[in-house]
């Protein structure tokens, strides 16, 4: 079981309020991702749940029981740190066994559980090495191993992949998702990478300056961002946000249209512009088009290879079904 409820939880460091009172419920077995720009309080929120920081106000409940004053070790949660935080002087085996040893399990049981975890994480060949003799990905796996042997009711990950290179990151992302599917344990995962958020999450929590901007499934956030911040944050490349007369024509202060929801034509369309920089990814091509009456270049996605060149004049037409409209407070208009 691992149902975590935050009830008006707030956190201040001295005078500075990092997290204003906030409510959030994380269901048992859910994979929840906290995402937001740097310094928005993701790590702080995670550390509050872990018990490594004390809340300034509010209540944290785990499986319905008040855990606000419970010390970290007693909350039944396991955490994987950004720096891995492995114990450098202990072998991989001892690292993974450490929580079991602290819990007073006998040696045979420790060994059995360490073996099982090492099997799952492909670490069997490295059990006698020191962390210093492992690659970044292997260290990450040891850190996860140390978390899973405890059989916690929820896992907390704080940007676990940010020290890995791009290829390894994709691999580990899949492994963590796979682990979640197998264990079906609640996982809370902090990242500032919205691709990680979109690909892994059951539920995304978008944070800005300690405030929850929106909570929802990846597709909900993609389809119906609640405000301009979420609209600009979720999706890659970013949604085009256009104000002024063009937005007024759609009865909004700002309109948003994703690059993949704009069609391109050489003859006719709604907006006229010239092709600027193009980015060829093979499967897709992104064009940055300077349009008349729109200050920022509009990003457009076109499938496959397209022969458009710098300086070509083209017409763009937004798909009306996928046009997002926002009012003067930046909130979504249905």
């Amino acid at each position, binding site marked *: 079981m691992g149902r975590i409820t935050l009830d008006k939880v707030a956190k201040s460091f001295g005078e500075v309020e990092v997290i204003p009172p906030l409510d959030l419920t994380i269901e048992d077995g859910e994979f929840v991702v906290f995402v937001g720009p740097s310094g928005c309080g993701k790590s702080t929120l995670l550390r509050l749940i*872990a018990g*490594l920081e004390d809340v300034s106000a509010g209540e944290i409940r785990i499986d319905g029981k008040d855990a606000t004053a419970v*010390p*970290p*070790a007693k909350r039944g*949660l*396991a*955490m994987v*740190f*950004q*720096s891995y*935080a*492995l*114990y*450098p*002087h*202990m072998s991989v085996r001892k690292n993974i066994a*450490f*929580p079991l040893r*602290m*819990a007073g399990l006998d040696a045979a049981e420790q060994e059995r559980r360490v073996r099982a975890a090492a099997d799952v994480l492909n670490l069997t060949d490295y059990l006698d090495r020191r962390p*210093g003799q492992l690659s970044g990905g292997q260290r990450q796996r040891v850190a996860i191993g*140390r978390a899973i042997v*405890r059989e916690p009711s929820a896992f907390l990950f704080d940007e676990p992949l940010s020290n890995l290179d791009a290829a390894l990151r994709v691999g580990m992302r899949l492994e963590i998702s796979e682990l979640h599917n197998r264990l079906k344990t609640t996982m809370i995962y902090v990242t500032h990478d919205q691709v990680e958020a979109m690909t892994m999450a059951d539920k995304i929590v978008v944070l800005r300056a300690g405030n929850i901007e929106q909570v929802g499934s990846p597709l909900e956030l993609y389809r119906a961002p609640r405000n301009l911040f979420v609209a600009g944050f979720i999706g890659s490349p970013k949604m085009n946000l256009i104000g002024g007369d063009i937005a007024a024509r759609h009865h909004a202060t700002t309109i948003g249209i994703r690059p993949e929801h704009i069609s391109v034509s050489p003859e006719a369309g709604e907006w006229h512009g010239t092709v600027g920089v193009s980015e060829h990814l093979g499967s897709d091509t992104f064009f940055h088009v300077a349009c008349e009456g729109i200050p920022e270049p509009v990003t457009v996605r076109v499938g496959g290879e397209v022969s458009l060149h710098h300086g070509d004049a083209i017409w763009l037409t937004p798909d009306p079904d996928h046009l997002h409209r926002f009012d003067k407070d930046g909130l979504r208009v249905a």
Partner: protein
Amino acid sequence: MATRHSRSAARLMMAPAVILLMGWMLVPLTMTLYFSFKRYLPMRGDSLERGLDWVGFENYVRFITSSSFWPSVQATLLIVGGVLVITVILGVLLAILLDQPFWGQGVVRILVIAPFFVMPTVSALVWKNMMMDPVNGMFAHLWRFFGTQPVSWMSDASVQSIILIVSWQWLPFATLILLTAIQSLDSEQLEAAEMDGAPVLARFWFIVLPHLGRAITIVILIQTIFLLSIFAEIFVTTGGSFGTRTLTYLIFQRVVDSQNIGLGSAGGVYAIILANIIALFLMRIVGKNLDR
């Protein structure tokens, strides 16, 4: 590239320093060795101009068969060991304490280092006369305040007194090195251990202490080198009596009090051998700790 060339140039430029240092070491060492095989009693009229008699290993045999030799080795080891134990244990505790955030941290840290700047002679005299004097010392007052008989430290607890004084001098050094080591400990490791269910003492034992292992070895190594040759503290307090005659002090007495330079030199050679045995011993342990 001119690596070969620059390497020989580098050698040339280092040569003066190396030669100077070698001379610094080798000249006294050879002289000690030379005198240790000679009969050299200036009071009896021996002198370098008239030539010294070769006596073979006589000085060595006399030094080692003298009834003061083994007690002096024991005293040396006892004092060095005692100071090491006290400075390392208290050093670790003080380092942990100073690592906590508290008001006036900067001033306190400087005050903690202060004893290191006091000359050994001065600090030993201060301890002897101000703290440990059986009539007027601070300890005597303290003892009397609690209604007990003051201890005459220098005679009844002489070795302990020396250990106390020397520890007081070396504690800052140990604390300083251990404090810098403790500050380099990744706080996430401690947090991870906390989440893994390790209570405070377990965190200290399994995380902090192993992290300090290397610094502790360095403290032990450096202190041993200096502690083997402590002299002033003994000279101004007990003068080598009441079981505080270390090997260094014995050599001093042989050369200066008995005016037997040959015998003292032989003692010096024994001291070198003892130091090397200890160094070898330490290096074995340290080596394991350092190459990680």
